[in-house]
């Protein structure tokens, strides 16, 4: 029996949702029939709108899909202006203020407190400036990710940006691929650093050479069925296919269609292609693709460059893209650390000014929730680096600031179990003040995800924190599971969950003890990931050793059952009414 969501999708889905959305916006939030809320809120996702959680009735999160994280000149300003004008609600965040933009782990942008009545005006402004929310959420092609500096990167094997742009144009709004069994996440990477993080996507194109007629041709190897969600992490499987850049749309469309036709539409838990690959095996995926979905002979896999991957590996250069890096045209891109990916609207607008003043006006977003200002000439570099804004969004941050990634959390998200972004800020600040890494350890990734959906990609961090609950002194409190030793690279591996249900106020002490133990017991030059690999779970659990410190956590209580965790009167009984339609 198909799920409710499938039934709703079979009635109205895809592009046609827009006219209904605009009609509701015109007639007011209350015009959505009470008994159709679940159905319409599910459908609105396809146009990038998530109804916020309990207690925030009538307010939406809006996700803007920016393919490969590319914001062309002027687009960041548009985002800042929209955030400033429309992303304001009844709750103010004590760290980030009343209006802000979130940069996500899939190189997109999220705004909160959007009112339905404002959606047409926001869409008009976005689309007039080449931006869109189409398919940013929902069961279809999501925002395509990759190395954000594709086309600029001096280290790239092949420029993947034209390929990504082509895929975006072909598969956004494409009725043949608009209603898939579940989300469809694609990564296309042309650089040798692995910064597209293909291994954790449904479909990955990675740079590879193939000898054809005696010559090395640059193209992409294809992997299928990666993903982190639902306590079922998978690395994308090699299906032994190499493809020329010009044939990527055919193979990508073929695999999307294969998923459309064969994915599970009865059980949404089982609907991702990673489970189909589990069931079929990589060989059968390849055989079916060849037999039914492409009309040319597929090449076998080429020679990849995975041995050179450094991104999110825990070691080597370019573990992230923060800092100053040379572009192939002789100018520079400057990666700035945005702690937990959130930037106040005023800062967004100021950064847009700086990008225009010192670079081309273009800005790009990484999968580590950071921003990259591109096209900065050598002559402008020092002046740019001296800008006051860069004291806060630093190209040379503390390892604990640099390594912090956090999802949305209970502030807005229905799925999360715990508060995340502000908590991760508090953790990073405490760790910066109180903990020293060994001198030769310059990066240390801590990812905090509020639930098993894994939006903060916790399984691929040095330290993975995942929302949980426990009791402390008999009281229910927010807690975190602790995983260690995850990362990507030529030998990707997921974190091992070694310590369960640590009360949130004991996490800083636990991490301090862990790092102290690591520093004391590591072999010469040993990285954290290798150190973890060398120890069994019990030994690591002993090192974690949770304890209270002078860190105080103001959000120990059940933030999920507040209307807004930072409100003075935060109870659900104090929830504001749905916004008036004006």
């Amino acid at each position, binding site marked *: 029996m198909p799920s409710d969501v499938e039934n709703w999708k*079979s009635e109205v889905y895809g592009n046609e949702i827009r006219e209904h959305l605009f009609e509701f916006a015109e007639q007011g939030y209350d015009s959505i029939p009470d008994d159709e809320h679940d159905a319409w809120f599910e459908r609105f996702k396809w146009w990038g709108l998530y109804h916020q959680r309990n207690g925030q009735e009538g307010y939406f999160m809006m996700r803007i899909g920016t393919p490969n994280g590319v914001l062309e000149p002027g687009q960041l300003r548009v985002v800042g202006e929209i955030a400033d004008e429309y992303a304001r609600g009844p709750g103010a965040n004590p760290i980030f203020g009343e209006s802000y933009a979130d940069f996500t782990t899939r190189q997109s942008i999220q705004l909160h407190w959007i009112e339905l009545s404002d959606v047409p005006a926001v869409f008009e402004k976005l689309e007039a400036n080449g931006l869109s929310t189409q398919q940013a959420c929902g069961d279809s092609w999501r925002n395509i990710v990759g190395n954000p500096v594709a086309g600029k990167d001096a280290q790239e094997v092949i420029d993947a940006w034209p390929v990504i742009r082509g895929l975006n144009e072909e598969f956004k709004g494409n009725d043949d691929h608009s209603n898939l069994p579940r989300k469809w996440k694609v990564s296309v990477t042309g650089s040798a650093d692995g910064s597209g993080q293909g291994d954790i996507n449904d479909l990955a194109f990675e740079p590879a050479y193939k000898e054809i007629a005696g010559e090395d041709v640059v193209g992409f190897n294809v992997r299928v069925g990666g993903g982190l969600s639902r306590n079922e992490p998978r690395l994308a499987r090699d299906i032994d296919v190499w493809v020329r850049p010009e044939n990527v749309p055919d193979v990508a469309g073929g695999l999307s269609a294969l998923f459309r036709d064969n994915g599970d539409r009865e059980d949404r838990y089982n609907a991702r292609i990673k489970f189909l690959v589990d069931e079929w095996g990589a060989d059968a995926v390849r055989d079916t693709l060849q037999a039914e979905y492409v009309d040319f002979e597929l090449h076998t896999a080429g020679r990849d460059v995975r041995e050179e991957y450094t991104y999110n590996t825990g070691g080597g250069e370019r573990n992230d893209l923060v800092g100053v890096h040379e572009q192939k045209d002789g100018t520079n891109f400057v990666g700035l650390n945005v702690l937990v990916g959130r930037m106040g609207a005023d800062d967004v607008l100021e950064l847009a000014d700086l990008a225009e003043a010192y670079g081309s006006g273009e800005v790009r977003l990484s999968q580590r929730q950071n921003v990259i200002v591109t096209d900065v000439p050598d002559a402008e570099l020092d002046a740019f680096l001296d800008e006051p804004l860069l004291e806060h969004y630093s190209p040379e941050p503390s390892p604990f600031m640099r390594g912090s990634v956090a999802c949305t959390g209970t502030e807005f998200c229905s799925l999360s179990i715990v508060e995340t972004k502000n908590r991760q800020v508090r953790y990073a600040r405490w760790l910066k003040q109180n903990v020293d890494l060994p001198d030769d350890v310059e990066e240390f990734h801590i990812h905090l995800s509020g639930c098993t959906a894994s939006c903060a990609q916790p399984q691929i961090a040095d330290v993975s924190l995942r929302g949980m609950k426990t009791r402390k002194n008999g009281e229910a409190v927010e807690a975190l599971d602790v995983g260690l030793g995850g990362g990507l690279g030529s030998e990707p591996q997921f974190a091992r969950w070694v310590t369960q249900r640590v009360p949130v106020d004991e996490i800083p002490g636990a991490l301090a003890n862990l790092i102290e133990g690591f520093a004391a017991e590591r072999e010469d030059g040993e990285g954290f990931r290798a150190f973890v690999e060398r120890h069994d779970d019990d030994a690591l659990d002993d090192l974690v050793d949770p304890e209270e410190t002078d860190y105080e956590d103001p959000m120990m209580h059940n933030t999920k059952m507040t209307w807004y965790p930072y409100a003075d009167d935060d109870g659900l009984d104090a929830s504001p009414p749905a916004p008036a339609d004006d």
Partner: protein
Amino acid sequence: MPEPATESEPEKRITAAGNAGSGASSTASRLAAAVRDVRPGHVPETMTTRLRVLDDGAWLSVDDTRRVSVSELWRLDAPAFCECDLADLVVENFLDVGVDGRTVTARVYGQCIVCGTKSTVEWVPVGRILDGEFVDIDREGVLEPHRNDPEPAAPNEPETNAG
């Protein structure tokens, strides 16, 4: 044009005393039903109450309103789940929602924070439908899962509808 995902399924019939999800695979979203307004001496009036699992198993939705969430801690009298006298279960996922008479029940995945057992618990009562409204059961108290096997409908007991 895309191939249609599915045809709409005919409404699924369940009995008032049965469990909506028994025998079915876990789905993130299910419509069940509960009996409303059953008064002695009257022909029972059945009205559909929409029960669903939403948000990837994070919430139970009742009549399009999120009412019960994951992350609650439930003290369960469930010897089959773990060896603790009372399991202290953190609810991590709703797998299915059902009804037993006027009681709304849920099939959940979670773990006992005392002994660490992780598993599925069948049909924990979470609320009741009274006068057409969902009323929370006191989930701070001890909860006793209902029997796994659905009971047959009693004679003359109304059937309710689910889709």
